[in-house]
């Protein structure tokens, strides 16, 4: 944005406008058909001065990234010895060999991480573009943005921070989208052969992709919250039915899968307009389900992405509507098995179906109901709404919930074909004992298969691998039929943003460490041991008075477990952003509200200038806001870019053991004292701040290890003694219970005697004496020399 001098308060936007003058006569010239392109003119209402880095380029924040990467050096975990991205290859990169283009293994791994993060950022940005374009078409360019009314003044923390802009209406989002699209294109270009060759420069660009990703997510959620009237930062948003057992199978059932909600919203609108709301069930999987329930609390969520195969094969859905992202590529084939038509709605996922967008709905419905067509591609969401509902109602009596799951007798007969070759187990991502369970089933014992259901991620690789063509996944689902019928849980509808007043209330206690931390459970469902672990993690930290946030598939998993009293996490804990709350922000794109809350703590509580001031805000968040992201079942490239957005803000991310397949960790070395020095802003001296947070990207082997690490990673150099004592209490208590004994690094985490929790004083003092520990100062920490108040070493 550039100021046009002399026009006070009038500013030019980045996107151009075209001014055409048919004829202009003046004293000096006579113009005809004059065309002038200038930036769009918008009245500037935001008085905050512009910071140093609005619309940062690929390298604007490189020095900040380097500061983080000096502490958290990449530990690369190559998934392959080779590079096969160009026709020089395959190139063998083992033993310090270089590829034909000159690239080495470290750079190649970071390049692959950048590819993943760029895919993720492009996916959210493209989704945001699709939403904004659609919503502008439907509601107009001037629809005001409203994510929480008067409760949310900082409506777009990422756009304010990164772009230096304060969007007020739908069309304002286009400027930020233009920026994101340019950056993603440039990031992708970096991965071309013969570009970057330095691994740390690749890593810096990974962080850039993550930052762009969070802007893209924010744009998408702001647009849909405002236009669809989703819950607006409401801590008491509705409780939504969740689970296979919550679906009324006596009605026509519609299933939506994906992430782009407009087609699902039009389905609900059509049902409302035709007064058919009680005549059909609208159910969903993955983030479209989440967003659909923000639109209508009567819609139901079946489960996270890993529920796709089991739900389709159950035969319950009569029509399947797919949009974009995380949808199984074989959905059409699976749907054909149960004779349910598929309606594809996104240019990004056409499924090979014929484009029926311009056809008469009567013709499309007739073809789908008669079985003449197995599916249709319809890009008009309104038409999707009508065709889907009419097809579901017409086809349901004919289908009679045709399922492809075997009966128990059939299951036992099929299982007898098993030769115990173990290829199913060897194909299973979690190395589950599939073959033994199938063999036992052949003897009539279904317990093994039933147990597998809880840990199964629903990928279906077991049956693809089976030389006997045993439909292993279907056997598992049949064996667990009782469990699936009992899947009746609930989840709080995604509330969106965090209110400014909530930030004001918790900002101080978080920065001082008295609320031990914000823990966000996000991401996909590639869990090592089933969904239940996520629910257990959430409840443990809520019980300990952390602020727990959830989103996407992890939010669903958090609700799919009942305690001894029969309550789910969302029934036990409040939906407020407060100590002991479990805050479901919404779908994948709602993750921007979680990182946004950290930014808002710096802006609203600490009154740090936000506008185009990324480095200073990130430095504040990194040193003071004890937030940790947890993606226990991270699978996708989007999960990679979401994590990268947290990293650039200095927020650590913990993943499950599958997370090592992202090809690198960012790990600190607590044993290297020299790595942990910070500036004390009060004196300008470089002082030891301790190894906190110890890691930036960490894969835990087990849920127990994750719990202990999460508690540790909420520590920050700025913690007051009271705050550090609270954090240490949680860390030590979890360590004793889950790992056994006192943690081995107490001497690194206690700075002063006052940090020691009173109830553990004796034990800790013994350790400190043994380690010859001495007190050190608690700094007013920063990594940026320009933040020093009275510079001495700057």
């Amino acid at each position: 944005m550039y100021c046009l001098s002399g026009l006070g308060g009038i500013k030019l936007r980045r996107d151009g406008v075209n001014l055409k003058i048919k004829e202009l006569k003046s004293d000096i010239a006579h113009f005809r058909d004059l065309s002038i392109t200038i930036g769009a003119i918008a009245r500037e209402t935001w008085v905050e001065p512009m910071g140093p880095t609005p619309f940062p380029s690929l390298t604007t924040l490189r020095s900040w990234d380097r500061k983080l990467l000096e502490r958290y050096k990449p530990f690369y975990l190559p998934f392959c010895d080779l590079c096969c991205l160009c026709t020089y290859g395959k190139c063998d990169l083992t033993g310090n060999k270089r590829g034909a283009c000159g690239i080495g293994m470290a750079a190649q791994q970071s390049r692959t991480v950048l590819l993943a993060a760029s895919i993720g950022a492009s996916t959210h940005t493209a989704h945001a573009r699709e939403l904004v374009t659609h919503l502008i078409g439907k509601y107009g360019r001037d629809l005001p943005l409203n994510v929480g009314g008067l409760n949310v003044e900082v409506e777009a923390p990422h756009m304010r921070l990164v772009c230096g802009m304060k969007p007020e209406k739908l069309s304002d989002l286009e400027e930020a989208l233009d920026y994101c699209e340019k950056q993603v294109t440039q990031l992708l270009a970096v991965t071309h052969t013969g570009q970057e060759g330095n691994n740390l420069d690749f890593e810096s660009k990974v962080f850039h992709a993550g930052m762009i990703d969070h802007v893209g997510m924010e744009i998408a959620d702001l647009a849909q919250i405002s236009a669809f009237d989703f819950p607006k930062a409401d801590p008491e948003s509705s409780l939504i039915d969740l689970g296979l057992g919550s679906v009324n199978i006596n009605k026509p059932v519609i299933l939506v899968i994906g992430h782009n909600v407009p087609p699902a919203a039009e389905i609900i609108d059509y049902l409302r307009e035709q007064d058919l709301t009680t005549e059909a069930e609208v159910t969903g999987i993955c983030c479209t389900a989440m967003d659909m329930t923000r639109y209508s609390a009567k819609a139901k969520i079946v489960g996270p992405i890993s529920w796709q195969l089991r739900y389709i094969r159950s035969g319950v859905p009569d029509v399947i509507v797919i949009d974009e992202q995380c949808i199984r590529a074989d959905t059409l084939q699976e749907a054909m098995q149960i004779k349910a038509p598929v309606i594809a709605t996104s240019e990004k996922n056409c499924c090979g179906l014929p484009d029926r967008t311009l056809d008469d709905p009567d013709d499309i419905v007739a073809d789908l109901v008669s079985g003449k067509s197995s599916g249709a591609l319809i890009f008009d969401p309104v038409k999707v709404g009508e065709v889907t509902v009419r097809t579901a109602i017409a086809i349901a009596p004919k289908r009679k919930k045709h399922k492809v799951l075997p009966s128990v007798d059939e299951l036992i007969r099929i299982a007898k074909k098993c030769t115990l070759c173990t290829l199913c187990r060897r194909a299973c991502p979690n190395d589950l004992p599939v073959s033994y369970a199938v063999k036992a089933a052949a003897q009539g014992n279904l317990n093994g298969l039933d147990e597998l259901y809880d840990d199964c991620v629903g990928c279906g690789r077991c049956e693809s691998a089976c030389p006997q063509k045993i439909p292993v996944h279907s056997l598992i689902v049949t064996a667990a039929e009782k469990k699936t019928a009992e899947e009746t849980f609930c989840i709080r509808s995604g509330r969106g943003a965090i209110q400014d007043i909530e930030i004001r209330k918790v900002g101080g206690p978080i920065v001082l460490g008295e609320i031990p931390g914000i823990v966000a459970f996000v991401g996909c469902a590639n869990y090592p041991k089933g969904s239940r672990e996520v629910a257990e993690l959430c409840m443990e930290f809520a019980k300990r008075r952390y602020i727990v946030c959830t989103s996407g598939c992890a939010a669903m998993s958090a609700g799919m477990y009942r305690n001894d009293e029969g309550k789910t996490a969302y029934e036990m804990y409040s939906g407020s952003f407060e100590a002991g709350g479990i805050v479901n922000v919404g779908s994948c794109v709602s993750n921007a509200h979680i990182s946004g809350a950290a930014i808002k703590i710096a802006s609203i509580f600490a009154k740090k200038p936000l506008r185009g001031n990324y480095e200073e805000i990130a430095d504040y968040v990194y040193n003071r806001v004890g937030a940790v992201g947890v993606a226990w079942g991270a699978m996708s490239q989007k999960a990679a870019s979401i994590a990268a957005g947290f990293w650039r803000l200095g927020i650590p991310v913990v993943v499950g053991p599958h997370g090592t397949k992202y090809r690198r960790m960012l790990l600190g070395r607590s044993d290297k004292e020299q790595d942990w020095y910070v500036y004390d802003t009060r004196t300008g001296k470089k002082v030891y701040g301790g190894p906190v947070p110890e890691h930036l990207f960490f894969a835990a082997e087990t849920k127990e290890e994750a719990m202990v690490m999460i508690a540790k990673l909420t520590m920050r150099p700025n913690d007051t003694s009271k705050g550090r004592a609270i954090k240490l209490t949680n860390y030590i208590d979890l360590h004793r219970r889950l790992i056994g004994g006192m943690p081995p690094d107490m001497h690194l985490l206690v700075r002063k005697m006052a940090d020691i929790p009173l109830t553990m004083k004796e034990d800790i003092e013994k350790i400190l004496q043994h380690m010859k520990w001495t007190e050190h100062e608690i700094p007013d920490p920063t990594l940026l020399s320009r933040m020093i108040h009275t510079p001495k070493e700057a």
Partner: protein
Amino acid sequence: MPLAESWQTAEIPGPKKASLIIKPDIADAIIRRAKRPIMVVGYGAVEYEVEGIKLIECLIELAKKGKIPVVVTASTAREFRNRGFSPAALMPAVDIGNRLTDSTWKGLDGKDTYDLAIFVGLPYYMEWTILSGLKHFASALKTMTLDCVYQPNASWSFPNSTIKDWAANLRDIVENLGD
């Protein structure tokens, strides 16, 4: 099934694959030859049991006889301590993996770098990726796994084998080390 084939079928690394430990004597020789070995034990070691004997008991004996410091990950420490054995360190798997790539790291005791890292009991795919990290970024370090499945990214690995055969092999290694 082929002996030197990744246990998880699709986890194929490339041209550099682990040599097979086809008999326990090989593992013995590798351990004896090492000047500074270290053993990393994951939580899976707690879960394996053959003929009433837990794998962890075999590993304790191996560590004692071979004078090998043991790093335990996750919740494994408690099981060692319950059996009267104090591990040299408690550390997450990715953390010890990362340190082993640092050629300047002088080890848990601050004396010298390690020349052999023995892995056992981590989730297959996690051990696979960590061993890959060491294969590519710890050139002076040799790695060996004691799991019953083939880990192609180690320097040496047992083939895919039954739990019973594997347990017999481990017992032989321990007995031979006592010679």
